[in-house]
């Protein structure tokens, strides 16, 4: 552990990260609310509609937890207001397919990767309060991820889900931080970030790739979505990173 001069940047970066998470959780809440409405509108199973509604409530609670963690590290609010979440699925698709697109991008990819990250953060966290928050987030995110996998399973029973395959690169590109495969400042690699519930940059990349390799891609393949476009996307990111001198994950 370094002195105060080394700890302070990690604390400030972490404050900013938790504030960003607040925004993401607020947006996710709106997204699940809208998904619940659309699932109902398209005649989805009542269990999936209910889970989407519960997920929206979870995300509102998560936003509060993230705001608390940001404030604890010196980040001021205001913790109010958020625009409606942007539409993410291609507008030309029928509603049922747009809903499935959003569930795959938001749950099978984003929430699934979040569980992997939260699991790693929990193992590294030392403070009991931070552990409590991370555990609460992880418990709910498991359910949110399952919503996507369940919806994809049901969709596959009723129709062809192969249309998702060419969209996987866009989903993955939208999920990752824009600089995940780019060089970053030394502060972003500081292991002290883990004590604040934030992943150092390289570890973030490692965990994302592991969750892709071990969970997301096998899951999509199992449920009838061809993942070759996703593998190509990943290979391109890694090649781009090598050209920039970024160490492999």
């Amino acid at each position, binding site marked *: 552990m370094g002195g105060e001069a080394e700890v302070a940047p990690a604390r400030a970066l972490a404050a900013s990260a938790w504030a960003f998470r607040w925004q993401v959780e607020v947006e996710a809440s709106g997204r699940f609310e809208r998904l619940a409405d659309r699932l109902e509108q398209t*005649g989805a199973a009542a269990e999936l509609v209910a889970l989407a509604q519960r997920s929206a409530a979870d995300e509102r609670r998560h936003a509060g937890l993230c705001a608390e963690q940001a404030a604890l590290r010196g980040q001021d609010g205001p913790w109010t207001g958020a625009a409606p979440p942007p539409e993410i699925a291609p507008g*030309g698709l029928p509603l049922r397919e747009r809903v499935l697109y959003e569930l795959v991008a938001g749950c099978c990819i984003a929430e699934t990767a979040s*569980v992997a990250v939260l699991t790693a953060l929990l193992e590294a966290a030392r403070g009991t309060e931070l552990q409590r928050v991370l555990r609460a987030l992880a418990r709910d995110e498991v359910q949110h*991820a*399952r919503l996507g996998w369940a919806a994809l399973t049901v969709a596959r029973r009723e129709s062809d889900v192969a249309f998702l395959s060419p969209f996987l690169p*866009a989903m993955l*590109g939208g999920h990752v931080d824009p600089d995940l495969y780019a060089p970053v400042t030394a502060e972003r690699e500081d292991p002290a970030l883990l004590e604040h519930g934030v992943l150092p940059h390289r570890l*973030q990349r490692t965990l994302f790739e592991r969750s892709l390799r071990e969970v997301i891609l096998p899951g999509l393949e199992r449920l009838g979505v061809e993942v070759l476009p996703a593998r190509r996307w990943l290979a391109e990111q890694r090649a781009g990173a090598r050209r920039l001198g970024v160490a492999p994950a």
Partner: protein
Amino acid sequence: MDASTRKSRKTAGGARRPSRLFNVLVAGGIALAAGCTCSKASQKPDKPDDGAAASPAPGGARGW
């Protein structure tokens, strides 16, 4: 941990074992779907939306 004590990630048949997270999330979701009531066919025609084009980002980044 050396090679002799590391738990094998392959089954006896050589296939790769699913990770713990795969079992919790993907298999958990598949099990959830098995308990779902049948979907009701939508009463409304499911027409393509002619609205705005998709945002390039799926809004999935979680800031972790």
